[in-house]
């Protein structure tokens, strides 16, 4: 069974890119969300295995979304998607319960490498 992924980003462009990278690598995209608020709602509906979460988004930012999701679920893997220079925000997300992070602009191989590492950690 393939890994089910929810992609969260306010830019459709970014969602599309991630979707392509992940689909090519054999992941199943089960949902998309354009804000933190939407992410939490979508999460409840589709119960994905993995979420890619943008940090700066309207309505509710990614960190807040992580906090809200962690209140409901401690299992799902959350990968923060961040731009360069957002160290503080990433650390805050990690403290909020995110598992790892990837940095824009993406190198597809790197994204997959990190996702695999995060998922393999879970198996142990």
């Amino acid at each position: 069974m393939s890994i089910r992924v929810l992609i969260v980003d306010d830019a459709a462009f970014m969602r599309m890119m991630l979707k392509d990278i992940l689909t090519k690598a054999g992941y199943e995209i089960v949902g998309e969300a354009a804000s933190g608020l939407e992410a939490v709602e979508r999460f409840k509906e589709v119960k994905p295995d993995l979420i890619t979460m943008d940090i700066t988004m309207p309505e509710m930012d990614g960190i807040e979304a992580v906090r809200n999701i962690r209140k409901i679920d401690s299992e799902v893997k959350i990968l923060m998607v961040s731009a360069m220079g957002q160290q503080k925000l990433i650390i805050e997300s990690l403290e909020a319960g995110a598992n790892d992070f990837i940095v824009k602009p993406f190198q597809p191989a790197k994204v997959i490498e990190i996702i695999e590492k995060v998922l393999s950690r879970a198996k142990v």
Partner: protein
Amino acid sequence: MDVSQYTEVFNSEAIELLQSLNETLLALEKNPDDLKPIEAVFRAVHTLKGMAATMNYTCIAQLSHQMENLLDRIRKKECVVSPSLTDLLFECVDVLQNMIERVISDKSDEFDISELIENLKNETEKNKGNSLVKTSTPTVSSNNLNYYKIKIFLEENCALKSVRVYMVFKCLNELGEVVKSIPSSHDLEDEKFNFDFEVYLRTKKQINEIRKTVTDISDVKNVEIELFKDECKEEQTNAVNLFKKESVAGSKKTQTVRVNIGRLDNIMNLVGELVINKAKLDRIAFRYEDLELDEILDQLKMILNDLQNEVVLARMVPIGHIFDRFPRMARDLSRELEKEINFVVEGKEIELDRTVLDEIGDPLMHLLRNAVGHGVEMPDERERIGKARTGMVILSARGEKNNAIIEIVDDGRGMNPAEIRRSAIKKGFISEDEADMLDEEESLRLICLPGFSTAKETTSLSGRGVGVDVVKTKIEALGGSMEIKSKLGSGTKFILRLPFSLAIIQALLVKVKNETYAIPLSDIVEIVELKDFQIKTVKKEEVFVLHDAIVPLIHLEEVFGIKDNGKFEIKNVHIIVVEIGEKRKGLVVDKLIGQQEIVIKPLEEVIGGIMGIAGAAILGDGKVALVLDVRSLLGLSRSI
């Protein structure tokens, strides 16, 4: 390695650790299920063990090692915190304290701890049985902490290295304690490194587990781990060195420095000498009337003032330093006496001069023992008279003008003035006629007489009253005062007034005949000039009327027996009205010289203890002025 240079740091730090041990053990006892205190206790014992081993204090190290084993079991919830267990731990802390005191005085920690070690072992073993039944987790790791040097290589295409470092630290800190890193954590945070860095980890875990944890982190290319040192003396030393290096690297952050109190005393004395010399300079400058000189002297005065303030502040220590030892004492005592007491400490942050602080520990201890031992009733008795079973003892400190006020309040049985009077008559302290003249407050003050006690039964404690005179004398020697308030049936309150700081004070210089005296400005309320006919006599006592109140007069030349050269009669007299508490008197002086900052030097034993004299001060002209002790002049202290 020569560790002697660290003795002082060891001593002061060990004492702090013991203090925190006492506090955290108390917290643990109150809340046995809370993990926080036990972690803190464990940490403190562990730190102490490491320090002691480094210093070659084997007894301390051994005992703390055994304690640590037991604590570790508690921490893992493998045994229950029972009263007997906390008692044992408290006993260990006491023995540790004794050993450390020995170390400080004799440089040796030798002490018979075999029995205690045996008890600890038993307790640990006893609980081991339990743990095997309850949990099936085998104890894989030995109790030994190891130091590992871990070199971490990040992927070269790794983005946001600092966040990776953060993740590495976070994971490692879950395994143990990251002691140090190269480059420093600060530089790592700023990404001032290539793709590899070193971390020193102190942990009980095995290499494999560490490797697994670290390599699981994304962007970690490779990890090299080597056992840095086992836990034994030599290596502890290295660990200590590690800390030392780190502290040098992080010296930017260092906010405090430990200074020997003797050194501060020296600085204080030197500042005192400066103040004296400045006064001399002022006198000389007065002769020359040079504007430039005056200006410089003004500046010098300001700098000197600042310097003095700084030194005074540097000597200030929060009163918590001594307050902190009392909760433990109150606990032990109330347990021993089977009383239930809620002991509250307030105002720990109030700061006092170190010398004052060092002196008030014992007096406060006396008063608190009295409050717990004699003030608060037994639980059953309290219930019978409609009070809560748990008695209340409050120790509080607050600032007020130039004084720190320390209060010891209990909600116990209070004192009975009539009983105190009767007892005083019986013991021959006062006659029945005298007793009739005393009001309630004066009656209460009788308990300050040496050898007075109204306690009907004697316990392991001193009876109420014994010790109170010692307390009063001590507080007064420090320039403070003690007040007693008590209400029969509802409690007693001791109020101690203490100066924040000693040494340099503002004083008024006066002349009596040919002698110069200094009167502390803080005691003076008013200065008036009188014609001699305004002095009246009431009950053979000379008085004058000030704002419709009668103020008794004291002739200093009579008190100090200064010979009148009798050449001329003074028609006008200056009266310095002094006041302490609610007591007021007028000191008759011949001449006012002026206000000056003085440095009080204590009088040595040979000439010390003169009634009415607090010490001496050197004036600008090199002459010595005696500093008046207004308290004893007002008849508030025992000596008059």
